[in-house]
């Protein structure tokens, strides 16, 4: 009886330890949480809030890796592609700049981007988004 349980228990031990090497699930979870239509709610540049009260901006990250950006104030729709590689969100229309995903919980999204300032240092921009309906972006 004792022998009967030894092998399954040992095999279970192997499969419990093995996944510890991988962070694949975390990447997949972020990718899943990125998908949706998002409304821009705030922008901070080097920690200072930018007034976006008069601006209505939306982005959509589609499951098929199509990216849409809609400036509802100007009525301008931009199309591109997106990927999540090296723990960064790459949007074809913004490359070579890419985004660090600070938060992606399925309801809110927070993206950080670094750009050179005139002195050669970095300007940090953080954009916060809230999940909204697909109808916000006309196609």
């Amino acid at each position, binding site marked *: 009886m004792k*022998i009967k349980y*030894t*092998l399954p228990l*040992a*095999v279970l*031990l*192997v499969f419990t*330890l*093995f996944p*510890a*090497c991988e962070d694949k699930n975390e990447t997949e979870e972020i990718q899943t949480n990125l998908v949706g239509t998002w409304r821009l709610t705030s922008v901070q540049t080097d920690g200072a809030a930018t007034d976006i009260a008069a601006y209505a901006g939306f982005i959509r990250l589609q499951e098929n890796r199509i990216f849409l950006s809609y400036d509802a104030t100007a009525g301008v729709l931009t199309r591109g592609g997106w990927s999540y*590689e*090296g*723990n*960064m969100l*790459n949007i074809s229309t913004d*490359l*070579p*700049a*890419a985004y660090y995903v600070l938060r992606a919980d399925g309801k809110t999204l927070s993206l950080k981007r*670094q750009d*050179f300032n*005139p*002195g*050669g*240092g*970095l300007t*940090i921009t953080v954009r916060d988004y809230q999940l909204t309906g697909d109808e916000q972006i006309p196609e």
Partner: protein
Amino acid sequence: MNKIRLQICLPVLLASFFLLSCEKDEPDKTASMSGLWIQEKITVDGVEMVLPDDAKSLSLLIEPNGVYRTYAKDATDKEHFGAWTITDNTWLEITADTWRLNANPLTQTPANQWAKNHVLTRFTVLNVSDSRLEIRLKTYEGEKKYSALFVEESRPLITGDNLDKINEEYKTLKTYIYTFGKEQTN
């Protein structure tokens, strides 16, 4: 008895194998590369180069998605970018804007004397830590001089007086060592 031992030892051996496969003998250079680096000096064949003003303030931003950007605040062409990767935990391979002479440049109009390409360049990573990056490049003098490595120098108008000299630069091998210091970012 032997069967029981095998049933216990085999899975334990397997578990050890998988656990050890997670460990690396050397620190992972890929993880250390990301960040904002400021160029401090370049040596050529062991002698420190006198850097022009635009190269003294060069910023190199390496990000984990495999893209790098450079910014030279005093240069005419301030920004360049390309892809980067670490291979065999030894080499830093980057793609960079490179200028080479077209065939028969003396018969070409000034605008067609030089051709721009975006090509792969391989550096050896000598040292990368939390504060310092040292990379070595062995290449032709002309390749370095007329590429965005990392500041793009102006290209001269090709004449009968300087053509031989520039051709010679593309045949002369030099070893360059770039040293960068790391800037702390949020």
